[in-house]
């Protein structure tokens, strides 16, 4: 067991972990931040995406020990300070970009990383960026629409309610 210390959603967090403990397990099991989901064991689905030092990371592929000293952001820290949904979250609700909600934390975290690097992505760029995030419910249509809306683009021309 080794002790790890990190900042999670702006607060200091620490715990004892085995060498093999994944960051996703540390967040879920020790810090009880269960918003980060685990949908696969081959690093394919993206339900577990968090930000480590500002970079989107699949937390199931990173050891907790590797995040020692890092600044970690999870879905639980994304809402506005007053508790209201942030722009991305609000766009997902407005455009019905989620159904069961299981992929959603990863989608929101990936979106935040995408828009940081590419503030006005095209539809093709959004779809390409989401290559590592699987959603089984929505068919992606409304996720893509939500992401483009979150980036301030007019999505009125995209079909459907």
């Amino acid at each position, binding site marked *: 067991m080794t002790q790890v210390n990190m900042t999670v959603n702006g607060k200091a967090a620490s715990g004892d972990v*085995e060498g093999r403990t994944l960051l996703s397990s540390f967040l879920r099991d020790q810090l009880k*931040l269960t918003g980060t989901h685990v*949908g696969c064991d081959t690093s394919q689905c993206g339900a577990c995406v968090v930000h480590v030092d500002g970079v989107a990371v699949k937390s199931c592929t990173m050891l907790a020990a590797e995040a020692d000293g890092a600044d970690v952001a999870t879905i639980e820290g994304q809402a506005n300070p007053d508790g209201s949904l942030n722009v991305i979250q609000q766009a997902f609700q*407005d455009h019905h970009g989620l159904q069961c*909600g299981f992929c*959603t934390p990863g989608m929101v975290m990936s979106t935040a990383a995408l828009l940081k690097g590419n503030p006005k992505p095209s539809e093709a760029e959004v779809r390409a960026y989401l290559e590592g995030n699987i959603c089984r*419910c929505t*068919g*992606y249509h409304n996720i893509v629409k939500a992401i483009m809306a979150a980036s301030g683009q007019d999505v009125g021309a995209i079909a459907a309610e």
Partner: protein
Amino acid sequence: MPKDGGIGASSKRREDVRFLTGVGNYTDDINIHGQAYVFFLRSDMAHGTINSVDTSAAAGMPGVVQIFTGADFEAVGSIPCGWQVTDKHGEVMQEPRHPVLAHGKVRHVGEPIAAVVAETLEQARDAAEAIELDISELPAVVDMKEALKDGAAKVHDDLNNNLCYDWGFVEENKAATDAAFEAAAHVTTLELVNNRLVANPMEPRVAVGEYARGTDEHTLYTTSQNPHVIRLLMGAFVLGIPEHKLRVVAPDVGGGFGTKIFHYQEEAFCTFAAKACNRPVKWTSSRSEAFVSDAHGRDHVTKIELALDGDNNFTALRTETYANMGAYLSTFAPSVPTWLHGTLMAGNYKTPLIYVNVKAVFTNTVPVDAYRGAGRPEATFQLERVVDKAARELGVDPVALRRQNFITEFPYATPVAVEYDTGDYHATMDKLESMIDRDGFAARRAESEKNGKLRGLGVNCYIEACGIAPSNLVGQLGARAGLYESATVRVNATGGLVVMTGSHSHGQGHETSFAQVVAEMIGIDENMVEIVHGDTSKVPMGMGTYGSRSLAVGGSAMVRATEKIINKAKKIASHLLEASEGDIELKDGAFSVAGTDKSVAWGDVTLAAYVPHNYPLEDIEPGLEETAFYDPSNFTYPSGAYACEVEVDPETGKVTIERFAAADDFGNIVNPMIVTGQVHGGLAQGIGQALLENCSYDENGQLLSASYMDYAMPRADDLPMFDVDHSCQTPCTHNPLGVKGCGEAGAIGSPPSVVNAVVDALQSAGKDVTHIDMPLSPDRVWAAMQ
């Protein structure tokens, strides 16, 4: 003008806020103080005789609480099957025992052999590795037709053979159908495979068992679409626990698509082990485990023949299907290729004679059961493919051939035992044709060809049967359950309502749409209505969510209960207003006396019900809570017309979906935004089946597609934006909301149009290709072109 609340409004989903902020409560988020963890040791062999399972070394490993093997479950019931099919000779199907942990034999890769309960998951896994298995491998049967041959290895030694049943439907139609084929001017024949799929909800299955010694009460938290059904199946048939001592909770569930309907061994195990170990026991499936333990879907091999007269009228339809059951009968497996498939074979057409034969086969593979659509996609795919092939053989327009044979008068009794109440198939086809710019297709094809690509347009129709019912009929057909739904509406003193529904939401947004219905009926704000589901200790009874039944059946129960509430509230209001009950009207949340300005607010009436000072106590009881059970008199029959436009790269065989349009008739619609989302999701799964997804075994029964590396899930860049319309509405005539169900349509209606489009593209280049089996992967398409 879009409404801003109630029925017909695209109300935003209230459940989204918790999901978007990471505070949903999925089963794996539940951790109970003192819980231990289970790891299942699963068979890596498809078929073998278990000589011994030696746990002695493992038992001494660090952290091990207890190890269980098949022997510990000998006195425990078999995992039950919920549907008994009777074959064409009047014999009941062969039904094998399905143990919680394998005993005597292993019958598929992934079957649990032993379970280690330990302090941590890692310790449980480490100990499982120390279990010594002595298993003699037996020849595996994987191919269905091989499995039925004399001398084939038997999956179950105590059954006669690997044939679960040989079903004929409608047996009395067989001779007349055969005669119609003799007399036909043209017969189109097609042999095809409906590829095996894995449902893959993004949340893997989880079970947490808890036992309270003081009260002898069991609790199971589980990823289920129907917790009451699990309570009944597991309590009554497996573990012998009465309902009043067993609580089953299915909290937020991360998608189901059918695969979370069924009762699984892991649920029974965790419930059993929590008592045996006297501590909570938790199991979380890994994705790798999910591939070998979640029930799979589809897997039919079919020969279909369509007979036409000289005027291109369909005169008869005949099919022969082999349906894979896997190694055991999952909960509703026998019903899928029979009653959910044969009854749909008329489709949208007035074919007078239909005969369906289905042979259900045991193989050494994971059990197969309902997956989004369940039987109906298989029916639609073969029918819409053979109609398309017939049109091409006859040189007629595929849309015109369909239109010519459409059913146009309702109600319509099909030759396959169902009666469609309403529909307007020309209307959805008209709508579709207006959406797809068919006239512009030639130009788009020319443009593609300029770029070295082939372009194809595929169209198809579908009919669906949702809300399977009524209970007395399905009982005659072999269902071992009722198919009603219940709802309890509890009005609180200050006017807020809680609806306890037996429907379960795992992505469908019931918490929003169900509240819209009740709010509209009373004329109050949606936020005054709370929807409670997924907990047998809160909801009196429920059959759950599957088969696009929630609003049609569960919603109807809720409407009935709300009507009872309104009737009683009117009695109270008539007392308060000193008017006769017949004169009381409810509008916008207030009761008034017709023709006067006297009124009393909803909240005053509800308060009077609980503080009955000025109250007709001699006539009615205090309180305002009502329950209704709703058992539908018929299925509902959504229908629609879909079109897909593809580009095919002749160099690589790669298919790209360029446009996809869906015109559906779901009857009345409560929340158009949610309905559109349901269609999108269904389309993605149907297109996934058509182009990408395939669950495949080698001849030894090893699963070749056991992770997301090998099983191709549709990703964002595999799919286009969809053009979805549901403005054609012929309301269901027999449920109070006039709704039909929308959850499965997309998955049912989309695969044939994709394949039709690819065939169209290849034929446009002069290729003699009449069919390619799904998934239409580049290698298959390329090979077909050579």
